[in-house]
Structure formats: C-alpha cells, structure tokens
C-alpha cells in the first residue's frame, strides 16, 4: 500500500507515484501568474518524409521518451493508431503518452500497453474498453489526468517534457506551416496542439494534405516544426462530431435547460457584453437556444462565446448575438466551416483558453459557464471522470478550469440517469471542487451553493424551485435506491491533477 497524504479538500492522495515523483497535494483553487517561457527552434529545410517510420527515426525517438498527440479528430482520429503501429514495428518501448485526451479511436493502446510499448499515460480522460481496462490495473504506473488548462500549464512549466509531438494536420506545407481548417480531413481549431508545438523538443506534423507553400492560415508556424510526415488519411470527419450537436427533444433535458436559462436570466448576468461558454450535449445546446430567444427579445449582444464550439454557437455568432467566438476545439462540420470563413470565429490555443499561470486566460474572464456532470455531491463537488461502476469513462476537459474562472458556474444534470442517482452523498472522484460550483440545476429542483446567498435570494425571488442540495440527493435516492458502491483494490490507477498542478483526488483499481 502506498503512503498517502490528505489534501485540502479532504481526499487522500499518494505521496509519490512513478509518473509524477513527489505528489503535491491540492492546496486551493486560485490563479497564479508566471512569465511565459519562450523557446526558439532552429529552422530546418527538407522536412518532408514519406512515412511515419521515417519520421520517427528522424525524430530520434528512443525507449523511455514521452510523446504527445492532440484529440481534435476525436472518435475519428487515425494518427495515434498509425504512429503507434510504426513505433511498435520499430521496436521502441517504454513510452509515456501525453495526449490532450483519449477517445474511442484509441483502444489500440490496450495492446501497446500489454506489449510494453506504452508504460505511462497522461490525458484529460479516456473512454470505452481502454478506460475499463486501465481501471482494472492495465498499467503499472498511475495515469495523470489533467484539465485542458492544467495540461497547457504542465507543458509550459516543464512538469512534463514532450520529446516528440505528433501533430495531425489537415493542411500543411513542406516547411510545416499548418492548420486544421482546410483539406478533406478538416477538423477546425488546433488549440490543444499549439501548446505541444511550442514546447516539444521535436515536432512532427502528420498530414494527408500536403499543399504548396505557404499553407494559410497558419495555426502552427514552420518555426516550430522539425518534420512533416505525409500519410493517406489522418481521420474520418464523419466520426469527429458524433453526438456533439444533438438537438434534444427529451422533456427531462428540456426542463433542465429551461430552468438553467431562467437561472441565467435571474442572475442578472445576461446583459450587453457578457461572455458565455457551454459544453456539448443536449441540455447545454438547449440552454443556448433558450438564451438566444431571450437575447433577441431584449436586444442583448454578448462579447464572446468560448471553448469547444458547436454549430449552435455559430448560429448565434452569425445572427450578431455575439461579437466573437474563441475556439479551442471545433465540434462539428458547421463549426469547421465557420472557423474557416468567419474572421470573428477565432482559433485559440489551450494556454490562452485555460492555463491558470498565464497573464490572462479566457476562462478567468468568463461570466457564465454551463457544465455537465457524471455525479454531483452534497458539497457541490463534481465528478466527470469515473462512472458509478468505478470505471474511468469520461474526461476532465475544461470543466475545472471554467468552473474556477466563471462568475457563474452552473451544473446541469438529471437527478437520475437510467437507474443511477446523479446527486449523491459523495462523488466517487472529485474533478471540480465544490467551491467552484455556484448552482446545480436538475429537473426536480435547483440547489445553490451556500457560499452564494445573494444568488439564492434572486432565484427564490424569480419563483424558481430552489431547494437544499441534500433534498435533491434524498429525492434521487428515493427514486433509485442507494446503489452498492463498486469494490476497489489498493492499487492507484490514476491521480486527478487540479489545474494548478496540485493533486485533488486519486482513482483506485476496480475489482470485478
């Protein structure tokens, strides 16, 4: 059993893990400023190679190194699997993968972990069979789960050194100027990869669309790129935006969305120049549609919408309801079109988006953030990473970053999902600490964080069904019964890093 220490939010975390060395326990949410580190790379010529193997050899990749990938192609990504196949064929082992996130297109990692090709993972999250197997102790080292802002911070600060970054691009020239907006596999913003390109020792652009110099626009410039590898296909655009822009007709989701939009209105924050971010998913998008009607009726024009951008947000931009969109990750075809043609739809790197150590990140300027949740507890802590059966099945994303930064952070979730209670005594894994969350909106009531009594008063005045969060918990349990918790072992399969680099929680192995 590893030595544990108690952090400031009351969770036990390990004192030491292989992937991190000494673990810094979570202290508090907050913003720190530090100078941005700049780094200049030599400009090379003759960067283009015809295969991934050649690129890997040229990059000098060796056993024990750390490589990185972005997940802008999400479920359609073909680059990570193809790069890993080439690495395996070259016999390179003991690699750590530092990915912006891992999706259903990355299940090949299971085999590479079993073979010893991959021995460490650092990611925002993981899903499906990979998450299930990692939860059962597939890896010998604990996974480091980072937020999108936290990952940018860790890379910038040097907590993780990327030896070789493999960056998928849908449009690239022979010098490595690249973007994700053009070409048959266009995916939009390259926000997460922009950080890797800046700090990785070697940068390999991987493209299926080598264009004449100069590629434009330039999301990542040639000054940062060592090698350009040309392959057949980087991704399947059909799989990229799966489910992201679903227009819900589910009455429960619509009820939650309607309550959430009433909370927004009652908060008084919807006024000229306000800023807004919403995640994907049925409820979030439905809130945007309610919000749009309200803005039109009252002639309100917002400043910016940020984060992962969907066509729903693009509609508001095109109708003049927002001045600009700041896009770190583009979720669907409509939004890819928009970032390509609309100058007010602006690409933003992950550091600008959410890195708490920069001299100003966008999340800290947010007025309103709509967040989803896998579980919320009576202390307003939110879990977005592990399922009720204990398996890792989600991702931190920008959840903790935006919740900390936004003036009003609203969690929208059903009280019960299928038979699973969502408002519970204690979340399994704390991802976003309760003090960051202002309101929890469910279809059966709205709970306001006690540290925000003024907001509570406004919501009561507006006639909204405000109740204590413990009442929500009791209602949930009365519908579903109290589930038996999963059985965990003593191995630590992952730690959850807060955006500032402290560790807020840990995840133990699930025993079947």
């Amino acid at each position, binding site marked *: 059993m590893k030595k544990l220490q108690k952090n400031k939010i009351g969770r036990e975390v390990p004192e030491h893990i292989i992937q991190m060395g000494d673990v810094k326990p979570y202290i508090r949410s907050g913003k720190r400023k530090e100078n941005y580190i700049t780094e200049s790379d030599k400009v090379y010529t003759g960067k283009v190679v015809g295969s991934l193997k050649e690129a890997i050899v040229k990059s000098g990749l060796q056993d024990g190194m750390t490589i990185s990938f972005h997940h802008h192609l999400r479920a359609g990504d073909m680059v990570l699997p193809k790069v890993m196949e080439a690495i395996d064929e070259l016999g390179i082992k003991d690699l750590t993968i530092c990915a912006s996130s891992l999706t259903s297109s990355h299940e090949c990692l299971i085999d590479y972990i079993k073979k010893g090709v991959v021995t460490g993972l650092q990611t925002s999250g993981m899903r499906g069979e990979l998450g299930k197997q990692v939860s059962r102790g597939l890896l010998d080292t604990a996974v480091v789960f980072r937020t999108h802002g936290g990952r940018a911070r860790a890379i910038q600060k040097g907590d993780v050194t990327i030896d070789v970054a493999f960056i998928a691009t849908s449009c690239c020239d022979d010098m490595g100027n690249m973007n994700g907006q053009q070409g048959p596999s266009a995916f939009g913003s390259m926000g997460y990869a922009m950080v890797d390109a800046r700090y990785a020792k070697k940068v390999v652009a991987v493209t299926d669309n080598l264009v004449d110099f100069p590629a434009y626009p330039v999301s990542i410039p040639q000054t940062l790129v060592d090698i350009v590898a040309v392959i057949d296909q980087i991704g399947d655009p059909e799989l990229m935006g799966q489910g992201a822009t679903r227009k819900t007709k589910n009455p429960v989701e619509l009820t939650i969305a309607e309550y959430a939009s009433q909370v927004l209105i009652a908060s008084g924050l919807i006024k000229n120049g306000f800023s807004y971010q919403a995640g994907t998913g049925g409820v979030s998008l439905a809130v945007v549609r309610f919000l749009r009607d309200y803005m039109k009726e009252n002639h309100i024009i917002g400043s910016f919408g940020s984060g992962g951008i969907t066509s729903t947000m693009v509609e508001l931009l095109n109708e003049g309801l927002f001045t600009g969109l700041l896009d770190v990750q583009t979720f669907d075809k409509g939004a890819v079109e928009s970032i390509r043609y609309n100058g007010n739809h602006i690409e933003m790197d992950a550091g600008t988006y959410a890195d708490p150590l920069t001299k100003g990140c966008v999340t800290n300027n947010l007025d309103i953030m709509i967040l989803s949740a896998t579980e919320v507890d009576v202390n307003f802590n939110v879990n977005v990473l592990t399922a009720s*059966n204990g398996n890792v099945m989600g991702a931190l994303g920008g959840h903790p970053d935006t919740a900390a930064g936004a003036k009003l952070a609203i969690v929208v979730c059903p009280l*019960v999902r*299928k038979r*699973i209670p969502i408002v519970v005594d204690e979340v399994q894994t704390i991802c976003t600490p309760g003090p960051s969350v202002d309101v929890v909106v469910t279809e059966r009531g709205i709970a306001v964080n006690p540290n925000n009594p003024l907001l509570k008063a406004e919501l009561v005045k507006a006639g909204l069904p405000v109740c204590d969060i413990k009442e929500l918990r009791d209602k949930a349990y009365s*519908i579903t019964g109290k*589930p038996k918790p*999963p059985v965990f072992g003593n191995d630590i399969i992952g730690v959850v890093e807060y955006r500032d680099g402290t560790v807020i929680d840990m995840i133990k192995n699930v025993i079947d």
Partner: protein
Amino acid sequence: MMKGEAGYEQSQDCQVTVKLKKRGNLNIVLHSKMEKMFGDQIIQKAKEELDLLGVKHADVTIDDYSALDFVIQARIRTAVRRARDGEKDV
C-alpha cells in the same frame, strides 16, 4: 405449467417471464447491467411483489434494462396475471 410475459427490451424497461408451478421453490433469475449496484434491491422488490400476488411456486426471469423499481413491479404483476389467465383458459 403456465407462462406469462410482460415488458419490452428497451432502456429503463424490463422483460419479466413468470412460469407458475404447482409445487417447488420460488426461483428468481435476474439479468441486469445494474446487478452489482442494484441486484439485491431488485430481487428484494420482486419477492415483495410476488408475495403480494400470492405467488409461491414459480420460476421468474427478469431481464432488466435499468428499470426503476415501480416498472419492475408492474411488469411482474402483468406477467403473473397473464400466466394465471393462461391457466384459466385450459
């Protein structure tokens, strides 16, 4: 032996099959993705419902698709009624 079925194979529903017997035990077999979390609770509710209906000798199969207790109870009630209706027809 009389058989009754109720419910559909869809999310938040369950399919219940009841075979009434003249003698023997009350056997309940549960298949559910929620078995680890809610298995005991579902079996308990099923027993209560069957007891209420006076069913003492039967083989009951519950194929659960994350139904809430009231759904499971309703499906059991209908399956039992159908099994008994079949009995009368003979």
